[in-house]
């Protein structure tokens, strides 16, 4: 995926910004994180007969202003109400098993944004097996409307040369932790 270089001063942090108009977005196919990989027996039992990772596709774009890498993700918003769980999205970066959101041996960076909670900088060692890292390194802004979510997550520009994956959590379906839809393949950033 081409990381667009945008002039400093462009408001890439805003998903509705016109700065994104010239950045090509790619349709990315998503698939549920495998049930067998879920980290606890409880989760595997509770979700054995329940569909999750329901978001099938996202549109992903990436841009940098030289200081930060901005990842914009757009996907269809499930309108079903849920007062307990929120929609969320993550940019996954690094080198490791993407389908399981990393592993203990190959942890991945997870720039995570959740509606109502904001952005978290996480290290992901498996589905939902996350630890918190320096929160100030990652930020995010999201907006929903017209049946869609558009979220921009950003972090250090040094990630611009690596590989990108995305994960989406459908809060209406009580998706959280490892119960996500994740991109089927890495997107090499260039």
């Amino acid at each position, binding site marked *: 995926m081409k990381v667009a270089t945008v002039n400093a001063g462009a408001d890439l942090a805003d998903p509705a910004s016109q700065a994104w108009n010239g950045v090509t977005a790619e349709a990315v196919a998503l698939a549920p994180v495998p049930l067998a990989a*879920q*980290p*606890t*027996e*409880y*989760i595997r*039992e*509770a979700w054995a007969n329940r569909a999750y990772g329901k978001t099938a596709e996202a549109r992903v774009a990436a841009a940098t202003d030289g200081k930060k890498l901005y990842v914009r993700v757009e996907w269809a918003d499930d309108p079903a109400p849920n*007062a*307990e769980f929120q929609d969320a999205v993550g940019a996954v970066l690094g080198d490791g098993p993407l389908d399981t959101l990393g592993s203990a041996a190959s942890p991945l960076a997870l720039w995570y944004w959740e509606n109502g*909670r904001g952005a978290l900088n996480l290290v992901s060692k*498996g*589905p*939902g*097996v*996350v*630890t*918190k890292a320096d929160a100030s390194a990652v930020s995010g802004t999201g907006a929903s409307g017209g049946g869609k979510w558009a979220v921009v997550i950003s972090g250090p520009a040094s990630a611009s040369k690596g590989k990108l994956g995305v994960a989406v959590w459908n809060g209406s379906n*009580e998706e*959280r*932790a*490892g119960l996500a839809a994740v991109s089927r393949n890495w997107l090499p950033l260039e």
Partner: protein
Amino acid sequence: MTANGTRQIAWVYDLNKCIGCQTCSVACKVLWTRDEGEKHEWWCSVNTMPGLGTPKGWEEMGGGIDPKTGKARPGHQPTRGEFGGGFDYNYYEVFYGGTAGKAHLEPQAPREGRWAMNWDEDQGAGEWPNSYFFYMPRICNHCTNPVCLEACPTGALAKRDDGLVLRDEDVCMGDRFCMEACPYKKIYFNYERHVAQHCIGCFPRVEAGVAPACVRQCPGRAVFVGFLDEEGTPVNNLVKKWKIALPLHAEAGTGPNVFYVPPLSPHRLNDDFSIDYQTPRIPPEYLESLFGPEVHTALATLSSEMEKVRGGGSSEMLKTLIAYKWQELLGPFTVDPADIVPTV
């Protein structure tokens, strides 16, 4: 003490002495859940049984271990509405609004579906004059097989060497599988801080030799604390030796470490208001649904000891339950909190 050197702090609530005053609930509340997002959290709560309790209908929410498969059983995550409470009140309107006699204190929440920690107090069950109820305090059971711990993907929960099940809130991501897995539904969610929270067994007090607040503040001398396997102590005697203190919903398979002396029952009244000495007012099958088939033996043992004392005899069991010496309730945690010197 177990073979691996660990111990288990356990509680025994005597339901024949609990008067439902909620002093334990308030002692816990003022100590631990007054920060942001904790308004609706009552780590210790007393409910009227039979009843829907807190969260509303918790006994039907699943969780625990499936006895057939030995695997974790899916459960429902109690919602904010099912816990209820945490209301704001119209204090300003009542006290300063010039509405004397018109405005009354009322929760600022929709009347429809309103629920709170002790919402169905004293409702109970049965038809007058044979209606019945009893009070049951509940805290985290600090289970021997804590399914909350197993369910957590981030490893936020741990069982300590003293048996308390504690959470590292810096590690908790608020995924709430623990709340689903807990068969007792005694884990709350802090919507402000996005972490789950539950009774911490007053571990900072316990570490300083002070009894948990729910125990020390009980005006009815209705609750004992101590190490389960420490022979000769009230907790050990009541649970292990005399077997009159029983776990709640042991069928959930988690090995709860809060035990209850089951409630004795008044006799039923016949239609002509004569006393039916053969039939207890609280249906034994209801008590069995809570405490298992052992409840019948426990109640028989209690009754027989009472008979013995009525006949002029002496009963160590009843002396223990009466708790002539208040400090005996506190187990090894007899330090007065007023004597603790703050270190920070």
